[in-house]
């Protein structure tokens, strides 16, 4: 499927991702080192004896040089060992394996909605550039981008859950248990997240489509007598598909971050609730593990986007 140039590009991108991953994991590792005071004392709890603190320091490898500690931590993380929660004692990896799919489900649902609604809106606006529907779409998308999504989530809860009971106000059902009910529970959070997502998609698609339609290449197609409809659908959309890919990958990353806040409104047992509760309770291994998973997810999404790019647009692979 891939030719030599694409394979070379893929190898280069994978190699480039390694320093980014190392640096990102090192930054996450250093988060705990920023903690004021001695981690060993924190871990040992109140009224611990000096011997106990020394023992913990030795057990946790805290007496080793920083770089060795980092190496041990990464080696553990690769093997799925992210230490244990300070509060419940549950392995952090177990907690994250339980909550991460829930977050991912909501993110994918929201991104799908954003694309399904945002793309037609963007096309509509671009095809009537300067007209009433264009202006309306642009105004709506400006508002969408500026909306605090946790606030719109609350309004949805008040209007559609408390006043009308069309959707549940809080809670979550795993898509692996009951897919239909899972969609029903996830609809309000996903729509709240998609409010700004679809605005972003519509805006970006409109702007790149308008730019493409104004180019010389399209003026020529028009002069040759091609109807506008076929210029738009056959040529215009193919040209902006790479831009759309960028928008979608950015959107996945942005929605991943925004879910953190929206999950709190709906009490969804996902990454957001886990990170925020762990932060408020100063359960640092959980915070560290959750941030690590989020960052690695973003890096992976970026990598996949890069690879898809080179398949969609062979010119990029040659650069």
């Amino acid at each position: 499927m891939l030719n030599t140039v694409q394979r070379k590009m893929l190898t280069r991108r994978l190699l480039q991702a390694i320093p980014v991953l190392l640096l990102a994991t090192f930054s996450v590792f250093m988060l705990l080192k920023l903690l004021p005071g001695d981690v060993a004392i924190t871990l040992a709890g109140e009224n611990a004896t000096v011997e106990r603190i020394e023992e913990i320091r030795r057990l946790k490898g805290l007496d080793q040089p920083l770089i060795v500690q980092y190496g041990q931590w990464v080696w553990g993380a690769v093997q799925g060992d992210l230490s244990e929660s300070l509060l419940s004692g549950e392995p952090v990896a177990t907690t994250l394996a339980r909550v991460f799919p829930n977050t991912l489900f909501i993110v994918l649902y929201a991104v799908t909605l954003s694309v399904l609604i945002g793309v037609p809106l963007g096309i509509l606006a671009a095809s009537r550039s300067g007209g009433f529907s264009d202006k309306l779409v642009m105004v709506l998308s400006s508002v969408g981008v500026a909306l605090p999504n946790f606030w719109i989530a609350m309004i949805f809860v008040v209007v559609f859950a408390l006043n009308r009971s069309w959707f549940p106000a809080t809670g979550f059902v795993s898509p692996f248990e009951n897919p239909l009910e899972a969609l029903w529970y996830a609809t309000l959070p996903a729509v709240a997240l998609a409010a700004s997502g679809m605005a972003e998609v519509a805006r970006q698609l409109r702007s790149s489509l308008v730019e493409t339609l104004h180019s010389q290449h399209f003026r020529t197609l028009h002069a040759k007598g091609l109807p506008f409809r076929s210029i738009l659908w056959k040529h215009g959309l193919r040209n902006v598909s790479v831009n759309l890919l960028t928008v979608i990958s950015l959107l996945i990353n942005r929605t991943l971050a925004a879910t953190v806040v929206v999950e709190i409104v709906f009490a969804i047992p996902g990454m957001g609730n886990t990170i925020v509760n762990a932060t408020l309770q100063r359960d640092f291994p959980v915070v560290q593990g959750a941030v690590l998973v989020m960052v690695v997810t973003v890096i992976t999404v970026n990598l996949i986007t890069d690879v898809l790019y080179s398949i969609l647009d062979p010119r990029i692979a040659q650069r």
Partner: protein
Amino acid sequence: MNDTAPSQSQPTGVIAPRIDRPGFFTRLLHWLIDDPIAAIGLAVLIVIFSCAIFADQIAPYDPTLQDYAAMLEPPSSAHLLGTDDLGRDVFSRLIHGATASVYAAVLAVGVATALGVPVGLIAGYTGGWVDEVISRILDTFLSFPAIVLAIAVTGVLGIGLTNAMLSVGIVFAPQLARLVRARALVLKQELYVEASQCFGASSGWILLRHILPNAIQPVLVQITLLMAVALLAEASLSFLGLGMQPPDPSWGSMIARAYIYAQISPAQMYAPGIAILVTALAFNTVGESLREALDPTSRH
């Protein structure tokens, strides 16, 4: 004869003819007349900044003053936007909330500018391995979801608005650095930069005197747009209880508190939400309009 004498001694052909450029205020006025929506956006921002600075003078009540005889009251002439669950005047809290929002946005974007601009200038102008290393570091920080990192850093440094916004600023810095780097890469090949190098100007002088002034326009646009993102980040963090701490008001924490009483008094959560929306919208409108005014090719 005496009248003509000085004109003979004047050097000719050395001084370039002076081009009459309209002054700053004339250009500002033209920009605002051309784009009335941006003018409205700017007016909104002036109102919000005034509220933030003169909150004590404008707000009719002390924002933390509790009145147990008037809890969760609807809007009235005494309380324009009603009272919250502790009998505090919502309008006064909204005005004081502007202080928190403006402080948070300025702090985060200020930190991002102070870190991002010099790093971008150095990477773009120096090039080579320095650029390569800096670019990889920027890539890394760009892959941190802003809110998530801000939550983690505030957790570690201690909960509070300043810590929260410092970490948001750190996450924003790479965006500005990338922008400045790209401009510096182009500008360092300009003839006037090369001429300056020939005259033996130091790198620092060239960066400050030639590259920075010519790279500043897209930075200004990005700063305006980032203000909106920082504002939304502050609201989210305060909503989560990691930003502004009670009893001091912030728009995000007002929404969080109003949500608890959403069934009894849903109107409580509308005012702060609309304040966030309108302010973010104003920053975006002004930013987009600035972009168009400074770079006519972006207009469609």
